[in-house]
């Protein structure tokens, strides 16, 4: 965990409103675990004040710029422009300064060999699944990705997954890519076929809830990666809590998304609460 003053390698629009951002990040390839995240400070002024959390899409090392120079570790983020912070980020250019806090939080537990892995992503939720897939393909084959999105533009990085050797299945609400419908339909089918699968999911809360219900019904293990409003990302502010397993409004049981998550075993969370 580090607070780096670093700089932009590239910042490319990969689909309308989606960007892929490469940042110099010494140490990340050794330290980062799939499912972890970073807090990005885009600018030096006080508005916007807070950093923005982003999942780690990938880490790697570039060859030296010229011989004699050191190799260059980097981290890749993929983000969607939704508000003023991400809008400012979309204007970043090569060489621009950025502060980067991370890698943060608890990532996916992939030290289990039980059952074939099924990755379920919804929209931008695909981000942490890529680095996960990179690790999983080294342990087991095949790795399967079930991807959902509103329309084809919201289905990102599928070719990257395929290049890794991941079997990908896509569903979109409007049928503009893959089959028409929800990714949860696909999940139901796959779980019938692979009843011992372990599921890793990231996406919007209603999707995660549906995935959870399906996994409970099929009695398979599920790890989910959550989003929450965050001020610090390091467990200091307690702004990012989610209701845990034993949560009741009269006797709350809160878990810190940034410190105890963002990846949770689905059994440790409360799924009764109205997530909207």
């Amino acid at each position, binding site marked *: 965990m580090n*607070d780096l003053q670093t700089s932009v390698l590239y910042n490319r629009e990969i689909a309308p409103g989606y960007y892929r951002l490469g940042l110099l990040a010494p140490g990340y390839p050794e330290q980062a675990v799939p499912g972890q995240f970073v807090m990005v400070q885009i600018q030096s002024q006080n508005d916007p004040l*807070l950093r923005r959390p982003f999942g780690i899409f990938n880490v790697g090392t570039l060859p030296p710029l010229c011989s004699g120079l050191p190799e260059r570790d980097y981290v890749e983020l993929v983000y969607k422009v939704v508000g003023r912070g991400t809008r400012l980020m979309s204007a970043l250019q090569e060489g621009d300064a950025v502060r980067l806090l991370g890698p943060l939080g608890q990532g996916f537990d992939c030290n289990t060999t039980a059952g074939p892995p099924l990755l379920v992503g919804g929209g931008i939720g695909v981000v942490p699944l890529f680095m996960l897939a990179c690790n999983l393909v080294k342990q087991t084959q095949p790795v399967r990705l079930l991807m959902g999105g509103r329309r084809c533009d919201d289905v990102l990085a599928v070719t990257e997954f395929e290049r890794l050797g991941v079997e990908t299945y896509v569903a979109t609400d409007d049928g503009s890519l893959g089959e028409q419908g929800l990714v949860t339909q696909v999940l139901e089918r796959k779980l019938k076929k692979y009843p011992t699968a372990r599921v890793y999911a990231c996406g919007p809360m209603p999707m995660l809830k549906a995935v959870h219900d399906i996994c409970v019904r099929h009695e398979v293990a599920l790890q989910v990666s959550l989003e929450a409003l965050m001020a*610090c990302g390091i467990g*200091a502010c307690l*702004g990012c*809590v989610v209701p845990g397993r034993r949560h009741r409004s009269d006797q709350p049981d809160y878990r810190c998304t940034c410190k105890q998550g963002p990846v949770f075993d689905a059994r440790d969370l409360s799924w009764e609460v109205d997530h909207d």
Partner: protein
Amino acid sequence: MTELVSRPSLAVELAGMHLRNPVMPASGTFGYGQEFTPYLDLEGIGALVTKGVSLHPKAGNPTPRIAETSAGMLNAIGLQNVGIEAFVRDKVPFLERINTPVVVNFFGNTLDEYEQVAARLSDVSVVRAVELNISCPNVKQGGIVFGTDPVAAAQVVERVRRQLKIPLIVKLTPNVTDIRVMARAVEEAGADVISCINTLTGMAVDLKRKRLHLANGTGGLSGPAIKPVALRLVYQVVRSVSIPVIGIGGIMTAEDALEFLLVGARAVQVGTANLVRPGIMAEIVAGIETYCQHQGIADINDWIGSLNEE
């Protein structure tokens, strides 16, 4: 040009406590310190102020608990904490290993609760001082906030003071018509130090859902947005009492800290800035040192309160 001071002294004294420098975290933005060890040498700051603790564990408010605002943030964490016993059991051992004075922030909803926590903390040897948060509603008195009524404030300070063998810092809220009245009331009632300010009460609106953004409705505004208000209140409090004052509110840089010290604060607390830049207090301490060197200030106490006023 003024001469360069090789190694200015930043040490200040607060109610008998000797601090190596005047910079400490504001309660609730620094956890119990441990979270910050990757980013900061805890022995480089003047004191360590922990998250507010209460008699019983408190689960805090439902979410959303935070909102970003222009140059500020709202929080309605709801004083979530592990409770005094778990604090002593689980957090104190870590604090005992650090060579930095520990100040424990605490609160209650009744006078009895305040007293019991104070009594318990006074017996914990690592606790060098306590900071009393009186911005909480007094449930026995129909929810009137201790911190906005001078009589209620004096009462809680007096009762707490009697339980303590260590210095008592009383933290004032800015949400009052005249903070000088509050400051004098708590000084007379036995406060050893005043810290101010706590957050300004604010709100955010979620247009999409046509709701208040925070589940709690209101929240506390902190960050650089409130610095001008905090400076004014610290200025007023310093001139109303004779006990030392800790300045709090929107400090992001060494210059900000120097401003609070200049108007008379003996020390400062850094809050929201820790959330944005976990290593920031080290930078602030270093920045104060550099400033003193360049300005020829051999001892930070010469700077404190040295504002030119006609």
